[in-house]
C-alpha cells in the first residue's frame, strides 16, 4: 500500500533553478541527505537479504525442504489460515470503517482511538490477552458455565479457531484504514441523488456505497493477506501442534535444526509465493474492473 502512494509524484515540484552554479551546489547538498539512509539500507537490509537468498541455493536446500512433509503441511496451513482470516478481517473491517465514516467528528476520533489502540499494541500482548480470555478457566468459559450453557470448559485455545481469532484481532486495523479511505472519497451527493429518486437505504448501500468502496476492499484484502502469511507468534501462543505456519517452519529449520540454507529456502519460497498470489490477485481485479465498466 505504501508503494501505491509513491505513484503520486508531485508534478512541477523541484522546478529548474535559475543559476547553474548554485544548482550544482544545492543538488550535492540534498544528495548528501540521502546518503545515510541509502548506505544504511544497502549495508543492513539488502546485504543480509542478498546473503539469505544466496545461501538458499547451497546444498540442495530447496529439494530438501520441499520433500519434508511438515513443510508441505505448513504451506497448506499458511494458505488456509491466511485466506480465512483475511475474509473475516475484511468483513469486520468494513463494518468498522462504515461506522467510522458515518460518525460525527468527535465520535470519529474516539472510534479511531479504539481502532488504533490495538494497532499500537504488540501482537504478543494481544495474543496473551486472548489466551487469558479463552483458556479453560478463562472469562469466556466461565461466563458460559455460569449461565448454565456448558458443564465442562470448551476447548477454545490451542486450536485453529483460536489462531484465526488472534490473527483477525491483529489484522483488523490494517483493513479499516484502506476501506475508510475509499469510503471517505465517495461523493456524498450521489447518495442524496439516489434517495431523492426514491432509493431505499439498502439500495443506496448496494448500488452506490459498496461498489464505490470496492477499491478499498480489494486493497485491504491484499494488504491483510500479505501480512497474514508471515504470522509467527499467534500459531505458537494460540494454536496447537497442527496449526504451525510457514514462519514457524522457518524458525524450526533455523534454530532447532540449524539448517540455515533450508530456512533460507523456506523464506524465499514464502516471499515468492506471496508475490505470485499478490500479482495474480491484482490482475484478476483489474480484469474484473474492466468488465464492470463495459
Amino acid at each position: 500500500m505504501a508503494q501505491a502512494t509513491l505513484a503520486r509524484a508531485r508534478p512541477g515540484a523541484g522546478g529548474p533553478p535559475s543559476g547553474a552554479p548554485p544548482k550544482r551546489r544545492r543538488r550535492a547538498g540534498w544528495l548528501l541527505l540521502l546518503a545515510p539512509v541509502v548506505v544504511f539500507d544497502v549495508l543492513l537490509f539488502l546485504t543480509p537479504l542478498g546473503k539469505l537468498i544466496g545461501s538458499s541455493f547451497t546444498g540442495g536446500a530447496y529439494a530438501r525442504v520441499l520433500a519434508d512433509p511438515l513443510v508441505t503441511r505448513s504451506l497448506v496451513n499458511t494458505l488456509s489460515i491466511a485466506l480465512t482470516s483475511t475474509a473475516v478481517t475484511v468483513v469486520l473491517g468494513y463494518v468498522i470503517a462504515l461506522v467510522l465514516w458515518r460518525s460525527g467528528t468527535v465520535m470519529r476520533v474516539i472510534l479511531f482511538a479504539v481502532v488504533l489502540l490495538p494497532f499500537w499494541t504488540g501482537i504478543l500482548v494481544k495474543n496473551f490477552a486472548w489466551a487469558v480470555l479463552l483458556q479453560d478457566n478463562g472469562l469466556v468459559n466461565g461466563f458460559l458455565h455460569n449461565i448454565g450453557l456448558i458443564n465442562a470448559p470448551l476447548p477454545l485455545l490451542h486450536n485453529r479457531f483460536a489462531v484465526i481469532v488472534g490473527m483477525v484481532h491483529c489484522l483488523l486495523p490494517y483493513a479499516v484504514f484502506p476501506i475508510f479511505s475509499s469510503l471517505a472519497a465517495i461523493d456524498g451527493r450521489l447518495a442524496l441523488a439516489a434517495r431523492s429518486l426514491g432509493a431505499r437505504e439498502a439500495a443506496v448501500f448496494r448500488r452506490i456505497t459498496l461498489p464505490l468502496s470496492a477499491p478499498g476492499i480489494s486493497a485491504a484484502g491484499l494488504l491483510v493477506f500479505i501480512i497474514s502469511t508471515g504470522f509467527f507468534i499467534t500459531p505458537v501462543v494460540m494454536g496447537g501442534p497442527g496449526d504451525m505456519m510457514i514462519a514457524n517452519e522457518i524458525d524450526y529449520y533455523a534454530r532447532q535444526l540449524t539448517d540455515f540454507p533450508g530456512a533460507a529456502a523456506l523464506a524465499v519460497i514464502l516471499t515468492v509465493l506471496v508475490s505470485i498470489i499478490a500479482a495474480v490477485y491484482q490482475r484478476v481485479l483489474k480484469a474484473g474492473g474492466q468488465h464492470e465498466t463495459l
Partner: protein
Amino acid sequence: MKRFSAPRAGIRRKPLSLLSLPVFAFLVVPTLIVVPVALNNSRYITFPPDGISLAAVQGFFADPAWTSALSASMQAAAIAVVLGVVFGASAAIGLHGRKFPGQQAVVGLVLAPMIVPTVVLALAFYQFFISVGLVGSIVPIGLAHAVIATPYVYLTTRASLAGLNPALVRSAQSLGAGTLSVFRHVHMPVILPGLISGALFAFSVSIDETVMSLFMQSPGATTLPVKMFTDIQFNLTPKIAVSSALLVTVATIGLLIQVVYVLKRRSTARMMPLAA
C-alpha cells in the same frame, strides 16, 4: 455536504452502531483486559480479578530476569529511535520536492523493509550478524529494529512536509541561508510533529518487535517481548500480565499524544498512520 446528509444518516445510524458494537468490543476489550489482570490479587491469572493489588507489579520489578529484559528493550528502542529518526527524516527532506533519475528506486529502498515479512528479515539478520561476528549484545537487535523503524519515520516526516512549498526552501537559499539554517528555520518547524510521531512509531515498533529479537537473543540481550514469548509457552503468569500492561500503557500514551495532536489539527485523516 455533511450537513445535508446528517439528519437522514441519523435514521440508519442506530441499527448499524448496535451491530458494530460487538466488533468494536472485540477490538478493544482484549487489549485493555491485561491491566486488571496485572493488578489481580492472586498468584494465578484469573479474570475477573479476585481483588486489586500491586503484588504482581512488585514481583515484576523485583525479578532481575524481567527488569533486565525491560532494560534490554529500552536500549534497543533507543538505538532504533535515534537511527530511525536520523535516517528517516533525512530521507524525507532529501526527497522532498526533488525529481532525479533513480528517485523511485531510493523511495522503494527506504520503504522496502516495511513489506518484507519479519520472519524473513529475522532470519536474514540472524545469519548476517553471525557472519560479521556481531552477536551476544543488544546492538544487532537495535540495528535490526532501526531498519524496520526508518520507513515509519520517513512516512510521517514526508506527510508533514507535504504542506511545505519547496519554493520556500529556494527563497531562503536565494536570500543566503546555508543548509543548516534552512533546515532550522524552514524544515524544522514543519516536520517537528512528523518527527515526534515518527519517533513514537519507531519506539513502538521496537518495543513490540518479537521475532527478530527472538532470533538474535543472547543471555545479556533478551528483550521484554522475547521473555514474554518464552514464558507464555509454559504458563500464563501474572508477571507476563504486568509486562503486557506496561506495553499497553506505552501504547496508550502514544495514542493520546496522537489524539491530542489530531484534535488540535481537526483532521481525522492524520490518525491513519499507514495512509500517511
